[in-house]
């Protein structure tokens, strides 16, 4: 399996290291020539304003948007969540393909960043680190809420799209990435079955 990681800005190397630990190959996407067949896509943490701008200017928006809409498993962490959200409070919509409303910098500035533990449906209790993170103000019809912290939605899934407002790539716990790799493996199997 090969996972593409959007590597325009932010903490993409941390995702790459996590996938390596799980024995999964990955490649970085920095320009349109880097876009090739993949089993899953990771949208990392960083600044969503920077990534949104570069996605457009480096001609990555169209091909990636098309792949996501066609069912490619995608995992968005923090800024990645914002990129996928249909509506963004305090920011601009990027791909806008997930039925959620994201509130940017929902916990305030850096002094509001925190660590906690929380229950995530399908996984269990996991460490969660929020860095100037967003939360999901509202999850629409098809978006399934997977975790809440102090009443706010911090993880959700809609079909092929998995988003969390925290940073599993910064913690030693590998379960969330394994969960995403399972989504990618299932998608790959279905694709192969259809081809036969």
């Amino acid at each position, binding site marked *: 399996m090969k996972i593409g990681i959007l590597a325009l*800005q932010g903490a993409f190397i941390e995702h790459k290291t996590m996938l390596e630990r799980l024995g999964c190959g990955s490649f970085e996407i920095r320009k349109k020539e880097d876009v090739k067949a993949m089993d899953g896509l990771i949208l990392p943490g*960083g*600044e969503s304003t*920077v990534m949104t*701008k570069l996605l457009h*200017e480096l001609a990555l928006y169209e091909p990636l948007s098309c792949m996501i809409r066609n069912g490619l498993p995608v995992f968005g962490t923090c800024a990645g969540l914002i990129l996928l959200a249909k509506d963004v409070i305090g920011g601009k919509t990027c791909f806008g393909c997930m039925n959620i409303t994201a509130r940017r910098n929902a916990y305030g500035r850096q002094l509001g*960043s925190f660590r906690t533990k929380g229950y995530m449906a399908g996984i269990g209790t996991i460490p969660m*680190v929020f860095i100037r993170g967003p939360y999901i103000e509202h999850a629409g019809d098809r978006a399934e809420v997977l975790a809440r912290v102090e009443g706010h939605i911090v993880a959700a899934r809609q079909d092929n799209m998995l988003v969390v407002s925290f940073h599993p790539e910064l913690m030693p716990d590998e379960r969330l990435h394994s969960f995403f790799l399972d989504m990618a493996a299932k998608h790959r199997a279905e694709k192969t079955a259809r081809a036969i």
Partner: protein
Amino acid sequence: MEQTRYELNKNLAQMLKGGVIMDVTTPEQAKIAEEAGACAVMALERIPADIRAAGGVSRMSDPKMIRGIQEAVSIPVMAKVRIGHFAEAQILQAIDIDYIDESEVLSPADDVYHIDKTKFDVPFVCGAKDLGEALRRIAEGASMIRTKGEPGTGDIVQAVRHMRKMNSEIRCLAGLAEDELFEAAKQMQVPLELVRYIHENAKLPVVNFAAGGVATPADAALMMQLGAEGVFVGSGIFKSGDPARRAAEIVKAVTNFSDAKILAALSEDLGEAMVGINEQEIEILMAERGK
């Protein structure tokens, strides 16, 4: 400062990686920087080139001006304090700044001690010319390091020198035998535990950016290829002919720092770069402040 807070502060620096942090002096400039793709802005009263030209004592900016910039943009806002001036740092923490730069660009307030950054919740970035300086700042609580370069000159030579020196010293420590680490720590005047960390990991325990003298997309690409994890641009942007355009192209150069074709395309027609001063022509070497 509790350990969790320090980890969170190192984590924010990780989120800035692969990005460009731009010096701005007004909310309008901050907006231009954000729209051009800055991953954070550094709020300061005068950019380094003007500080150099004006001379005199240079201090922390007016908190009201910093607040104006915080309100103008959604990305992290950093601001500078004088070396050793912990009261300025307390003030910046009180206005909820995202990162403090304890900076040699301002006039040092203390010629012996840096700020004890472990006493703060807010994160600090500090400059370093070599590995010893970097590790001393980390021991004092810095959660991010940058080269010192020579701010306000538009001359990249010093940032290159600092980055090369740091990397060479890291490689050297990584290659030492276990029982040679004690002497290395003594020579460098840094804590043994940090020397051990470098020996085992062959990298700094915090994110390391390039700063000082970056004026073109090629300068940014050079620093990234030399191992910087991101770039600060000070006078290079708002002292140039077309700031918005130059800023945007430097951002793209940092993302695609090893693709010469892309770099060629975005280096075209950028207008006039900042004039710059050669290091031999400078009267004050700011990088010599605070070791």
